């Protein structure tokens, strides 16, 4: 299957949803055929439910892990305006995590369990967030390229067959589109600034270009679960189609920025009506997925630490709520 930030097909593992068995409820099949929306109370095939839980959870995890690489620059943003925009952006990502966990909960799972699965490594997040933000320009590159790729992946999800997910995605996409413009604007300012700023921008684009293309997942020939997700109306376009769409959208934007993309094979193909581009080397992506990326260990450690450090706070909130309920009960009695 394809995750949402695009991306991460995982190595085959025991948590991967099994293929559909074909015994789908008639009402469900009718809904899909009529392009209707499946809602939580409808009779859902178990494999559909498990595929969605996995995908939505992975998307939610990606949002909250994605807070880290950009959060890394909040304290160092080079102007107060940029600091405010960045804080608001990272806050939006937390908000996206909240809507998406809520969408997953409509499928009968709970956020705490999903977080446990993230923390224990049983569920994944998008590998793009295992790359470091080394300079301020990386904040721009993430906005422009990573959020840009996410939008290309996510816009079709606004028409996903599962209603709560589709509705969450409409809101997420509006905000992501704003983020993408902010990223573009950061890079535009840098590339029209001092020589050092322009070099910083080019370096960031050089490092984030190929990982962004990998966000669309493996080539279609090598994406075994995509067909099932397409049949279920979860996925609307193939990985390669979405990757092409992203390249077509991004190449003219790079020209407008005055920056180059690190691929000598990029050129317009009149016959295809698309940009040609070089072959993506997925070896690196597989390494990052396996846990050998530059920041895998740090991202997980940061998340687990925040969760563990906050345990006493959550326990206190529960204890206080119980006391308040007991007091209210005593008052009524």
């Amino acid at each position: 299957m394809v995750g949402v930030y695009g991306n991460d097909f995982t190595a085959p593992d025991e948590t991967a949803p099994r293929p559909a068995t074909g015994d789908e409820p008639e009402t469900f099949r009718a809904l899909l055929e009529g392009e209707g929306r499946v809602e939580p109370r409808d009779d859902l095939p178990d494999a559909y439910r498990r595929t969605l839980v996995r995908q939505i959870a992975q998307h939610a995890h990606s949002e909250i892990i994605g807070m880290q690489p950009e959060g890394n620059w909040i304290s160092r943003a080079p102007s107060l305006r940029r600091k405010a925009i960045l804080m608001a952006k990272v806050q939006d990502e937390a908000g996206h995590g909240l809507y998406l966990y809520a969408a997953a909960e409509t499928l009968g799972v709970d956020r705490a369990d999903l977080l446990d699965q993230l923390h224990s490594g049983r569920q994944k997040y998008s590998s793009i967030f295992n790359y470091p933000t080394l300079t301020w320009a990386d904040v721009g590159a993430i906005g422009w390229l990573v959020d840009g790729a996410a939008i290309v992946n996510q816009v079709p999800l606004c028409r996903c067959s599962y209603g709560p997910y589709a509705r969450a995605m409409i809101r997420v996409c509006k905000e992501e589109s704003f983020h993408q413009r902010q990223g573009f604007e950061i890079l535009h300012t840098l590339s029209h600034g001092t020589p050092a700023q322009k070099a910083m921008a080019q370096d960031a684009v050089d490092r984030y270009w190929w990982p962004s293309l990998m966000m669309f997942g493996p080539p279609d020939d090598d994406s075994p679960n995509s067909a099932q997700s397409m049949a279920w109306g979860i996925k609307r376009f193939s990985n390669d189609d979405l990757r092409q769409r992203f390249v077509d959208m991004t190449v003219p934007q790079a020209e407008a920025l005055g920056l180059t993309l690190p691929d000598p094979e990029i050129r317009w193909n009149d016959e295809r009506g698309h940009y040609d581009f070089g072959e993506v080397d997925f070896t690196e992506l597989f390494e990052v997925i396996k846990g050998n990326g530059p920041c895998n260990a740090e991202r997980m450690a940061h998340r687990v630490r925040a969760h563990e450090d906050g345990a006493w706070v959550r326990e206190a909130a529960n204890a206080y709520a119980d006391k308040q309920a007991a007091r209210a009960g005593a008052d009524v009695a």
Partner: protein
Amino acid sequence: MTDSHAGYVLGLADDALISAQRMGWWISRAPQLEEDVALANIGLDQLGQARTLLAHAGALEGDGRSEDDLAYLRDERDFRNVKLVERPQTDFAVTMARLLVFATWQAELYAALAGSTDATLAGVAGKAVKEVAYHVDHARQWVLRLGDGTDESHRRMQAAVDAEWPFVEELFRPVDPALVAAGVAADPTVLRAAVLRRVGQVLDEATLSVPDVAPAVAGGRDGLHTEHLGFLLAEMQHLTRSHPEASW
């Protein structure tokens, strides 16, 4: 407009800026996702206040310094914030104890300044007073939960209040009497009673006690800070200072 007028506004601006900088640390580190959102929101409000106040201080000063010049190009000794806001706050109880005190103080301050004869200050205060009402409420809710939650949370919340308390008194240091007489500034001694009463009520409701400790030696308004501020500024300012010719 006198130097002390600009200095007064700069002190309030620096309080908000340094507090926002500390608050930003929490984003991605909060005990739950809702709190990441809430603390980011509070930090953003404070940063917004800081920006308007810094721009106003720069205008009063009359040397053409922008909000960014004031935030990024001053050294430790030129910052005018109280010490309350500059120390690390990586413990959630400390963050909430500090926010309760700071936001309650800001609430009383901005309510008074909404009637300032300085029209810009009055405008900023009139907007900010609504924001900080939410900050006070948020801090109050957490102080209640932690104070009256588990044994551990009670102990940690009391320890946090004890640690913050010596830095409370600095908020009420006298300001230039001429500014108060001119209706520009709020009289800190008047704010003191209201702030201590409101904070005391929350602590009491949270089953916490008001610490009986001597105030720490003040000095933030004179640029005499803790050792922590230098590190905060080094981190905040380094990129901007590394590219003096750049705009961002």
